């Protein structure tokens, strides 16, 4: 665009200068032509004047010789008179030629010629008389002089010609003056336009030079950035392939060389199909011109190594436009290893699912197949006691009582196992649970004996979780505290405070406390510290509590001084843990 403008400007400048020069030339040519014409005319005028003088002088000479002949009768005068008349004729003829087309001078010349002719006739009339020997009278001789009319005509013509010559000279001088002014003006204009052109060109050259400098600088920067880019490409851990809109490989970095087994030189210029044979990914936009290419990030597809071996890879393609042409930068990652671990993980997951399923089935089997015979034993023992009390005797009845007690304990154990297995397996919808209400309800449900006081310090917060499990958690901890209380004035205190992104709860009692060496053991399934015959317990409660707390993303631990009491601490995160299911799930 700019270039065009510059050229137009230069062209316009030159055209202007040329036009000025041409105009000047034309003017000069014209002036010279006019000069020539004027000079020629001046020469003619001068010739005319000379001829007029010649005519008059020839005429007077003819007259003088005539008179001399008439007076002296010398015949040599006659010859001289004839010679003068001959010159006169030559002068007149010359005048006729020179006068040309001027009508006034021409008519004067004609009149002059006529007058001269009649004068010469007069001269010739006197001559024969003298030749016959008769003297010419003096008075007649006096009539001979050149008549006034001829003199007057010659004078007029002289004056006219002189005036014309003068006018021509003046005109030429004026023209010359004008021409000089015009020429000066034209030269000035031409100088101005050339200067303008020069300035323009100079300006342009300067602009171009600075543009060239800038270009040079940019080229340098570009080459630097190119180098940098190449360095980045070649040191990148990921394989990077740059492809044009047709799928032709433009760049192939070192990692890509290692990944595919081709060298950059071998693959640049080839179609990318050679590397990415079959795009398996759907749901991402495909580039129509190169079906092997998909734009997107984290798409998984298959690559083909030099030997033809295929391998899974993850590809992220981004599209950019360079000079209006699309260019695709693909970052590829060999995910064979990931695939292997995914497969291994999937297998492990399947195994876990299977074992969970087994556990579930086990729980179901326990609940039905163990409970039914247990109930049978219980029923039969009951009926034996009822129907055969007499025959059994006191010892037999005691045995049956023990039998029925063990049946009940086993039933509780089975229930415990079922409950424990149900936590995390059967999930409820997550809601915000007002723990204040949960704890108060639990206290009401547990009906603590008169000597035990349960205090809730301040209002307990609401947390997100499974309502049933929350209830179980607090019930287990509170019932443990009540069950093991050994002091005449039992005090159980429930507190909560926010700390470091979590809710920290404490259930503290002034009961017997727990020996530190058991602090870990008590949270394990079926671990009890008191003989079951003394204090009924299945050893499920705290294991269940730990499972519930951990399922909600928290931790549980105990702090205790034996003889003074125990503090059960547990936390719940303020935010709902991600692994917690958000919807009810009934298997």
């Amino acid at each position: 665009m700019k270039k065009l403008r510059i050229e137009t400007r230069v062209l316009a400048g030159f055209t202007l200068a040329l036009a000025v020069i041409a105009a000047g030339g034309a003017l000069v040519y014209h002036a010279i032509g006019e000069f020539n014409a004027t000079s020629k005319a001046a020469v003619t005028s001068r010739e005319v004047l000379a001829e007029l003088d010649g005519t008059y002088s020839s005429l007077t000479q003819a007259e003088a010789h005539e008179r001399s002949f008439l007076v002296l009768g010398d015949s040599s005068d006659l010859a001289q008179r004839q010679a003068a008349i001959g010159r006169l004729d030559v002068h007149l003829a010359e005048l006729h030629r020179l006068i040309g087309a001027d009508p006034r001078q021409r008519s004067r010349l004609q009149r002059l010629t006529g007058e001269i002719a009649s004068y010469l006739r007069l001269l010739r009339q006197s001559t024969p008389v003298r030749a016959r020997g008769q003297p010419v009278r003096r008075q007649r001789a006096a009539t001979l002089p050149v008549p006034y009319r001829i003199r007057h005509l010659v004078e007029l013509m002289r004056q006219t010609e002189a005036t014309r010559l003068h006018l021509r000279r003046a005109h030429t001088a004026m023209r010359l003056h004008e021409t000089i002014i015009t020429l000066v003006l034209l030269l000035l204009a031409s100088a101005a336009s050339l200067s303008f052109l020069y300035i323009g060109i100079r300006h342009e050259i300067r602009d171009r030079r600075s543009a060239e400098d800038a270009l040079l600088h940019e080229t340098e920067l570009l080459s630097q950035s190119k180098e940098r880019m190449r360095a980045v490409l070649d040191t990148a851990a990921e394989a990077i392939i740059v492809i044009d809109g047709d799928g032709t490989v433009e760049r192939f970095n070192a990692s890509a060389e290692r990944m595919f087994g081709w060298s950059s030189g071998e693959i640049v210029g080839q179609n990318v199909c050679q590397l990415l044979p079959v795009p398996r990914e759907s749901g991402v936009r495909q580039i129509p011109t190169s079906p092997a290419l998909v734009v997107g990030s984290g798409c998984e597809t298959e690559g083909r190594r030099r030997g033809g071996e295929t391998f899974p890879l993850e590809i992220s393609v981004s599209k950019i436009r360079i000079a209006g042409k699309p260019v695709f930068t693909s970052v590829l990652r060999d995910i064979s290893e990931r695939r292997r671990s995914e497969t291994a993980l999937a297998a492990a997951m399947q195994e876990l699912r299977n074992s969970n399923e087994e556990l579930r089935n086990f729980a179901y089997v326990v609940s039905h197949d163990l409970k039914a015979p247990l109930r049978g034993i219980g029923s039969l023992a009951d009926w034996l006691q009822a129907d055969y009390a007499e025959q059994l005797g006191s010892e037999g009845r005691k045995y049956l009582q023990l039998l029925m007690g063990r049946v009940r304990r086993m039933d509780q154990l089975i229930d415990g196992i079922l409950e424990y297995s149900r936590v995390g397996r059967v999930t409820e919808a997550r809601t915000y649970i007002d723990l204040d209400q949960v704890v108060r309800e639990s206290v009401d449900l547990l009906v603590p004996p008169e000597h035990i006081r349960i205090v809730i310090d301040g209002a307990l917060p609401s947390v997100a979780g499974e309502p049933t499990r929350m209830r179980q958690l607090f019930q287990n901890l509170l019932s443990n505290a009540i069950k093991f209380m050994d002091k005449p004035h039992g005090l159980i205190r429930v507190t909560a405070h926010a700390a470091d992104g979590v809710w920290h709860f404490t259930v503290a009692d002034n009961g017997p406390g727990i020996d530190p060496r058991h602090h870990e053991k008590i949270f394990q399934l079926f671990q009890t510290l008191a003989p079951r015959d003394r204090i009924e317990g299945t050893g499920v409660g705290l294991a269940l509590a730990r499972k519930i707390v951990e399922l909600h993303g928290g931790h549980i631990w105990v702090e205790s001084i034996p003889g003074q009491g125990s503090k059960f601490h547990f936390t719940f995160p303020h935010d709902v843990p991600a692994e917690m299911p958000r919807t009810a799930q009934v298997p």
Partner: protein
Amino acid sequence: MKITSRPILLVEDDDVDAMAVIRAFKSLHITNRLERAENGEAALAALRDPRHERPCLVLLDINMPVMGGIEFLHAIKDDNRDLRCIPVVVLTTSNEQEDKMRSFDLGVAGYMKKPVDYQQFVETVRTIDRYWTVSEMPE
């Protein structure tokens, strides 16, 4: 029971559990004749037999061989002989939420867990009897 003239059908595979029901009926003086089917299929055959007297109540165990309680409930729900009008009370060991939901979904009139303690079991049967003494049932 509101209706004493018609039998009660007990669908139960465990003999001792069946004996427990019979014993509880006896001790609670429930006079209805107690019939027993050992699984869902036998119960269904009995209910579909036109010569067989239609029971006023079905006591149904869930976990049984051949045809379990849930399958039996499906069968009578799809039956076109008004079998679904007979009230069914589930009497089972299963405490599974899934069993409870399915049972009620299939229109049971109650769901009782069999306690391991016989005395408690008698109380459960007493509750069933009381309820169906007060509640109306289809003729």
